[in-house]
């Protein structure tokens, strides 16, 4: 089978030996329809060819995990018969080509994953990474992505309540647009993407099927970018949030009426992927008649119908008795609905065009038997063995100016410009609004709440992928703990370069192992997620960036903690034993223009004790504010709490490391807590684990004052810090 010079399989992204493998599984050569389907199912995006063996090492179970990886989303028990469904995904390549639609359909896809589980979506969080805002194209990308997220999420009525925003040159040609959705579901209403029961019907409903997004998963998501990137624009889908909103309501009505055997959304790989996965999960087969599929345009080839990634479509498995009920709900919501197939017992996906069979493949081969590859890892030369000495860089002459420069960094300053464009209040559940350590949503009718955060740190993972990944998990958990929530589970989006290269494979392997270690120790199993490889352009990869979306349980929404100082005279305490370092810090990048050294490793055992202590201090009503030391170090941490409250702080540090390292160095295992003087004894009493507690100052005044060894090193008015922090992003976007 050849088309022009190259064989058809190669044009579809398959290797020669993979083609041979397909032939041997079929016992013959595939026809074009079958080849197109195999090329999707065996793409990196759908088949996890380079990641599957390593992902097996992640912890995926726990007493609260009702559904781990393998379904459309993970599900976590939060008590009272309720559960949280969550999942994070990437839409990096589509967004790099067409930022608005790329981001919008990213939201659409992840939201469908959540309601396919029978859950009502209650929140979105979007970690975004771009190149430097000094470049016009990056502004265009940021603007388009934020507008795309806003357009889709706002219309759906799902609040976007958190995420991340990071700018660094490594993402200039490959922005990262990760999207996370969280839903709420009662235990007995959870749906699965399974097709079972011979003779049951397969109903396709929602939008019609067109030629948009053909090859999205295989051509776009599973290859590097080069000079042909622009030509791939037609592989990006176009979103219709209005139809998706109707689809959401229709699906939840079907769920409530108990009409569904299984429900699956159509995402990457379209009908091919959805049907084969439903059959695989149900241990069944499916006969699909493409002549029945409602089309958006005429003259579509059978293979196009099978692999189209047209958005806003769902596939349901329904008993013949419930067909009328499903059809009635679709009619109520003005949605097309058609019986396109039936469940069989033969374990095969058979495609018919009317009476003619045009494809016949074993479901198992499509879903479970994509080849896997292990590459010999190569440790990149830039990964150092030792940390930089504290005096590696010259001491800045003006530390106040350095503090303001860090607060103005687009990686630290206020994100209001972004979240103001997102409807972050709809559904009226925000117990904590965006801008804090974590987002917290209440559960109506319950005292419980759910805290959510996303975290990624590509720069640190670049310097040491294992330590970096451990740090990412630890920091996400620390954020939740500082809000007063107990971390329960994560979903992950693993953004990496081309895994066929030894150095990238090394980064991936190390990061996954680091993540597994941290998730085990902190008891936050992985409930699913997504791997995004080939984030490279012209051979240059992004920073390895395993992004974590973590959820935690708030026992009492009356006891949620925020990071702003609360009262003049409160004592400032530094909890934990982390030692600050410049390696991989925002200070190193912003002030000294380098990314170098070796980041400190997190002591997971100490981290766990620290977080338990912080949560205890919050639950006991002792802590009045809590903020973890992260980007920009202790000085930025204190400044942010001061800015939030409008109240200053005076801190006296021991003479120790160099002042710039003490102020701006970054470290795991450090949290700033404030408390009333009278409560300090109580705090000591609950510190059974012996977490290091240092009293470092007092809240008060209108300046941020820090001294070390008796010598003043920072003295900045809160108002000045606040102005810089509040206005920088907007200025950078406008400038």
């Amino acid at each position, binding site marked *: 089978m050849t088309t022009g010079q190259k064989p058809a399989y190669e044009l579809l992204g398959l290797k020669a030996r993979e083609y041979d493998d397909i032939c041997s599984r079929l016992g013959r050569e595939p026809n074009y329809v079958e080849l197109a389907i195999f090329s999707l199912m065996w793409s990196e995006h759908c088949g996890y060819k380079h990641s599957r063996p390593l992902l097996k090492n992640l912890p995926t179970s726990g007493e609260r995990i009702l559904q781990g990886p393998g379904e459309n989303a993970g599900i976590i028990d939060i008590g009272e018969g309720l559960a949280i469904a969550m999942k994070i995904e990437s839409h990096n390549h589509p967004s790099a080509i067409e930022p608005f639609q790329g981001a919008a359909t990213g939201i659409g896809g992840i939201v469908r994953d959540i309601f396919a589980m029978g859950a009502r979506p209650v929140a979105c969080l979007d970690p975004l990474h771009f190149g430097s805002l000094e470049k016009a194209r990056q502004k265009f990308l940021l603007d388009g992505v934020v507008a795309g997220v806003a357009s889709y999420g706002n219309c759906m*009525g799902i609040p976007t309540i958190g995420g991340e925003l990071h700018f660094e040159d490594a993402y200039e040609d490959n922005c990262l647009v990760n999207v996370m959705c969280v839903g709420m579901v009662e235990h007995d209403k959870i749906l699965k993407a399974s097709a079972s029961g011979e003779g049951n019907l397969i109903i396709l409903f929602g939008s019609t099927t067109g030629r948009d997004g053909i090859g999205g998963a295989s051509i776009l998501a599973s290859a590097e970018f080069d000079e042909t990137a622009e030509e791939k624009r037609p592989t990006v889908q176009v979103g219709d*949030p*209005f139809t998706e909103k109707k689809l959401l309501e229709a699906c939840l009505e079907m769920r409530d009426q108990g009409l569904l055997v299984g429900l699956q959304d159509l995402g990457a790989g379209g009908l091919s992927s959805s049907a084969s996965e439903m059959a695989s999960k149900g241990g069944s087969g499916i006969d699909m008649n493409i002549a029945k599929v409602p089309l958006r345009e005429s003259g579509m080839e059978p293979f196009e119908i099978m692999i189209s990634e047209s958005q806003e479509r769902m596939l349901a498995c329904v008993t013949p008795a419930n067909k009328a009920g499903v059809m009635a709900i679709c009619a109520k919501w003005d949605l097309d609905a058609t019986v396109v197939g039936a469940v069989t017992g033969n374990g095969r996906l058979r495609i018919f065009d009317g009476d003619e069979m045009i494809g016949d493949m074993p479901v198992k081969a499509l879903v479970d038997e994509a080849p896997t590859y292990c590459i010999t890892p190569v440790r990149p030369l830039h990964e150092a063995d030792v940390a930089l000495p504290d005096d590696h860089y010259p001491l800045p002459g003006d530390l106040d100016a350095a503090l303001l420069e860090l607060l103005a960094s687009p990686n630290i300053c206020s994100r209001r410009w972004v979240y*103001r464009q997102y*409807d972050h*209040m*709809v*559904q*009226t559940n925000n117990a904590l609004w965006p801008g804090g350590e974590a987002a917290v949503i209440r559960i*109506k009718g319950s005292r419980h709440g759910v805290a959510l955060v996303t975290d990624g740190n590509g720069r640190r993972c670049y310097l040491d992928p294992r330590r970096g990944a451990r740090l990412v998990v630890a920091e996400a958990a620390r954020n939740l703990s500082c809000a007063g929530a107990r971390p329960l589970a994560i979903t992950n989006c693993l953004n990496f370069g081309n895994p066929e290269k030894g150095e990238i494979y090394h980064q991936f392997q190390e990061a996954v192992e680091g993540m597994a270690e941290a998730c085990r120790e902190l008891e936050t199993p992985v409930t699913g997620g997504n791997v995004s490889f080939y984030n490279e352009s012209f051979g240059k990869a992004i920073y390895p960036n395993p992004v974590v979306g973590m959820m935690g349980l708030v026992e009492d929404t009356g006891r949620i903690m925020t990071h702003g100082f609360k009262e003049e005279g409160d004592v400032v305490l530094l909890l934990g034993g982390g030692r600050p370092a410049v390696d991989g810090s925002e200070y190193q990048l912003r002030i000294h223009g380098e990314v170098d050294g070796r980041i400190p490793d997190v002591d997971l055992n100490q981290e766990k004790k620290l977080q338990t202590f912080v949560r205890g201090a919050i639950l006991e009503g002792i802590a009045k504010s809590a903020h973890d030391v992260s980007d920009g170090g202790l000085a930025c941490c204190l400044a942010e709490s001061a800015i939030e409250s409008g109240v200053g702080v005076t801190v006296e540090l021991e003479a120790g490391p160099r002042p710039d390292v003490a102020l701006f160095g970054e470290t795991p295992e450090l949290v700033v807590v404030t408390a009333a003087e009278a409560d300090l004894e109580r705090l000591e009493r609950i510190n059974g684990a012996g977490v290091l507690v240092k009293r470092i100052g007092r809240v008060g005044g209108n300046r941020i004052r820090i001294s070390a060894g008796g010598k003043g090193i920072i003295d900045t008015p809160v108002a000045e810090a606040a102005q810089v922090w509040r206005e920088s992003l907007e200025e950078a976007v406008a400038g």
Partner: protein
Amino acid sequence: MTASPQTHTGVHAVRFGVVVFPGSNCDADSYDAVSTFAGAEARYLWHKDEELDGLDCVILPGGFSYGDYLRCGAIARFSPIMKAVRRFAEDGGLVIGICNGFQILLEAGLLPGAMHRNEGLRFVCQLVNLRVENAAMPFTHRYDEGQVIQVPIAHMEGNYFIDEAGLSELEANKQIVIRYANESGEITGEANPNGSQGNIAGICNRTSNVFGLMPHPERVCDSLVGGADGRGVFESVIDFVKNR
């Protein structure tokens, strides 16, 4: 789908109907908010319904009815229920349109004027300060005239426009109910989040039984989630109906 009415013996509950258009997304928020008030009950109305029997107040909620395709509210106004809403309003029934609901009321001609895109051409979601301009009408009498309340907005098209003659008429008849203001209640350009003419955030019809506003009072009925300044709108309606 009716909230349990917490009525005093012998007093019938004030009945709110929340219209669900395809694409409405603040319908549940409005329903939940109303349901928290003693003496009120809520039920959903499907946009194809043609009767509004027994209701005291109809809420056209926020969202993106029909995806806001064509123009915000332009398709929803043709929904079958809008004929009933018009009759209901003509008979003196209370109608409140919030955000997209306000846009629908404008498109339906139940309120005068039109919406432009926000001046900044971006969606804006934030808390704003509102000055109550008219506290002698069914939706606001629980507030004081000149009172400043904090209520969130969340819209792309809230830049209210009306011609000079129309504006004079609104002013003459005290139909401007709330305006965007600063914390001290001054009507300034800086306090205007969307470019709206005269900082107008909400208006009513001449008989003051139809009220449209861009801010979302239903989102601030519980201090756990951002404030309770919006409660006054629903409390005003409940009081008004009970004392009618």
